């Protein structure tokens, strides 16, 4: 953000067009502007996720572009209910994403199981149980505008990060298995 805001005046002061900036801010700026997403749409929220990338909401303008291949993406948008049967697949897709990577949980189902918190035996109570989530978006389903807000929040987070070894946020590449299996609900 900071670089773009000041780019005009900086160019005025430096006739040769040379900009001096921290490597950190440059990298963060570039990363934040191009968060390619892995749409992990499993249920109802996926419809709003699709709506978000089409005509009216057009998320391409934020640099957020859905790529179905995890190896091309930076942020996984988990939209929908995750069941115990689906959980290993989601985990594996997360592990296949290259670092640095972020996770957005879209919808109440990813927060806590949402409407499926009580009385069911097959739903994971929130993806926080097995994924490191950066931004949660509440709603059942959240409007595309909320998702937009979530992506902008994530961008703020991304722009605060540093690539210096000491300051780098460490993320486990392989996740520990959650300590409960199917059927052990409530």
């Amino acid at each position, binding site marked *: 953000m900071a670089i773009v805001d000041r780019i005009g005046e900086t160019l005025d002061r430096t006739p040769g067009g040379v900009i001096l900036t921290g490597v950190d801010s440059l990298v963060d700026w570039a990363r934040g502007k191009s968060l390619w997403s892995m*749409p*992990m*749409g*499993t*249920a*109802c929220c*996926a*419809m*709003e996720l*699709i*709506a978000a990338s*089409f*005509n*009216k909401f057009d998320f391409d303008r934020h640099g957020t572009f859905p790529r*179905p291949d995890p190896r091309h993406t930076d942020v996984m948008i988990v939209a*929908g*209910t995750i*069941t115990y*049967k*689906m959980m*290993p*697949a*989601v985990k*594996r*897709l997360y592990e296949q994403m290259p670092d640095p990577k972020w996770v957005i949980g879209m919808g109440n189902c990813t927060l806590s199981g949402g*409407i*499926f918190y*009580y*009385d*069911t*035996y*097959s*739903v994971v109570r929130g993806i926080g149980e097995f994924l490191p989530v950066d931004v949660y978006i509440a709603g*059942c*389903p959240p*409007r595309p505008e909320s998702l937009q807000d979530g992506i902008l929040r994530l961008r703020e987070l991304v722009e605060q990060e540093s690539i210096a070894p000491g300051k780098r946020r460490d993320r486990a590449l392989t996740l520990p298995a959650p300590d409960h299996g199917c059927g052990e609900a409530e």
Partner: protein
Amino acid sequence: MPLDVESREAVETAEGEVVDELVVNVGPSHPSTHGVCRVIIHLDGEIVTRAEPVIGYLHRGIEKMAENRTYLQVVPLTDRLDYVGSMYSNWAYCRSVERLADIPVPERAEYLRVIVCELQRIASHMMAIGSNGADTGALTLFVYAFDQREHVVELFEELCGQRLTYNYVRPGGVSHDMPEGWADDVRAFTAAHRSALAEMDKLFFGNVITRGRLKGIGVLSADDAVAWGASGPVARGSGVNWDLRKHDPYSVYPRFDFDIPTGTDGDCYDRARVRLYECYESCRIIEQALAQMQPGPHRTEGLPRLIAPPPGDAYDHIESARGALGVYLVSDGSTRPYRMKVRSPAFCNLALLPTLAEGHMLSDLVAILGSLDPVFGEVDR
């Protein structure tokens, strides 16, 4: 079953010849499985010899949950069944409850239900046609179709405040009457939608690439469609003239003049095209319903919050965008259903996949799956 089943298998054919089969795994997260379906495909070269759908990745136990909720509390759960067409599940469930507890429905509510369900049919078919286009490489069509869907969703938002999970149809009526000016918005939409449909018809169905990709692919004969219990556009694409709105008339449908479009070849092209023509018919029904509607109450007054139907069971079905959607309810006289069972058209239609895909190329499998239009919330429940 392990997630990675990619292997080679030596298989002996009927003629005693040993061929090398490649087993590939599509899904459960794949952009063209329309949700979380997983298909295990056996390939001989590029030809599919066997395709085996594995379902259950979205099994949320909705039928079981319903046993612990009161009759009114189940309505929001039904929204999450078929999330591309929530109004249908609402309505099918409410019809069952009304039959079970003998609840009258005011006439205006019936008209409102018909209008929202026909709008929902348009929204759902736009999604199906659009993704059919995207699966065969015509992403443009998806954008065109999604634009139309967005208009419907906006109308619903005006009506009941939600874009996707409406909770609109309730036992004994609907939750809100139309807001002021809504009828005019709907009329304006149907008028504009017709020209958009004509444009899509020319753009997609007249396209030589589309014809090449969809014609003659996944042919389903009329006999097979009946034998497998297919319904909705999948059966009608094969020329089976079966539509519950005409052949088991419910609600106020007998008062409208509309046709049932049917296909002739039963291939992917016909199934998609039947959906397009159903949108025209939906526009016709909506316009007639708006003209016939009389002022009146939109729900039965004095209905208790806790409905306790007498012991017994009831089944009722409606024609959803995917086919015959039925809900079977058993009551033991308490305020909660003893058992709820959903007859899901998407599940029955998906069962056709192995039959249809056999002998086709791998890339056609995606088109076949798309033309069956499964929604996994409803398949897995």
